[in-house]
């Protein structure tokens, strides 16, 4: 018998949790892009309102970001055992 046949079979498992998190990160990615893009546009139109706009920009950013961060739990629950 050859050495190849006696070697232990290699088991590959698909990690669904990581896959799910990758999918879940798409939405917040688009959202954060929209938040910053529109805030920069607003600041370019009205530079005198920069302080006010950036305050709301950070609030919007944090609300969008939390979605991605909550999804971080998923790979730890549905990992390849």
């Amino acid at each position, binding site marked *: 018998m050859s050495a190849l046949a006696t*070697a*232990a*079979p*290699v*088991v*590959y*498992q698909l990690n669904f949790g990581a896959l799910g998190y990758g999918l879940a990160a798409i939405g917040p990615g688009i959202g954060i892009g929209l938040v910053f893009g529109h805030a920069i546009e607003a600041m370019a139109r009205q530079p005198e309102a920069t*302080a*006010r706009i*950036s*305050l709301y920009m*950070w*609030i919007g*950013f*944090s*609300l969008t*970001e*939390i979605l991605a*961060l*909550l999804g*971080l739990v998923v790979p*730890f629950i549905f*990992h*390849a*055992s």
Partner: protein
Amino acid sequence: MIGDVRVVADAAGGCHLFGNCGFPAPGLQNFNFKPLFSVGSFHFTKPMLIAVLCTVIVIAFFWAAFRKPKLVPRGIQNLGELGILAVRDQILRPSLGRKGDVYLPFLVSLFFYIFLMNLMELIPVFQFPAMSRIGFVVPLAIMVYGLYLYLGFKNQGAWGYISNMWPRGVPWPVYIILIPVELLRFFIIQPFTLGIRLFANMFAGHLLLVIFTVATWYLASFTIGLLFAVGSAAMVLFVFVLELLIDLLQAFIFTTLTATYIASALEAQH
């Protein structure tokens, strides 16, 4: 899980330069530490040491800067004033305005404490963000929650505060949905997300650093794997700089949201 990964790595012939075969996959076990010393059932661990050290450093720094404040600042007072002015002009003034300067000491200490706790992730010897243990984040979130509830009840009265929360001038059937959602947002989602955001960011950042560092060590060999090791080492540097940014950003966001919540407690939002 680790056992399985080892088996797969052995079968694939994965052996690295200095030691045995097998890939020690980073995971939740990287966040648990053996106690440095124990007093009875109380175990003093590395995150606790980092937290105590950060507190002492922040207190000592501002004590040294403003022990004898002079009109023309010299030495360390320059640095202290720079920090305080940054927090005042970037965080406090946009949301609270000039009348909110009473809360400046609270926000400054909150900002620098969180920033230093996060920064410990990158400082050699420590290399652990204490904020990635949720036990260090929850007291901060509870403190902020208690503060803005107290300020809201004090300034607007219990019923006035709650009734000011939902928007006026919508058709009445909308209130059936709007009132529970607003109450849920205010009493549960706001404090919950405030804490979770800081915790999850630090957790993910530390895990990212650990993964690339371990991968660099694992891939270093005399074969073609060395090329991958160089790539992984470059990623460590990149993630290092990224984490530097995220540490600052998270301290900034936590303090900004605190200032916003205080502002909404002080006066009704329309």
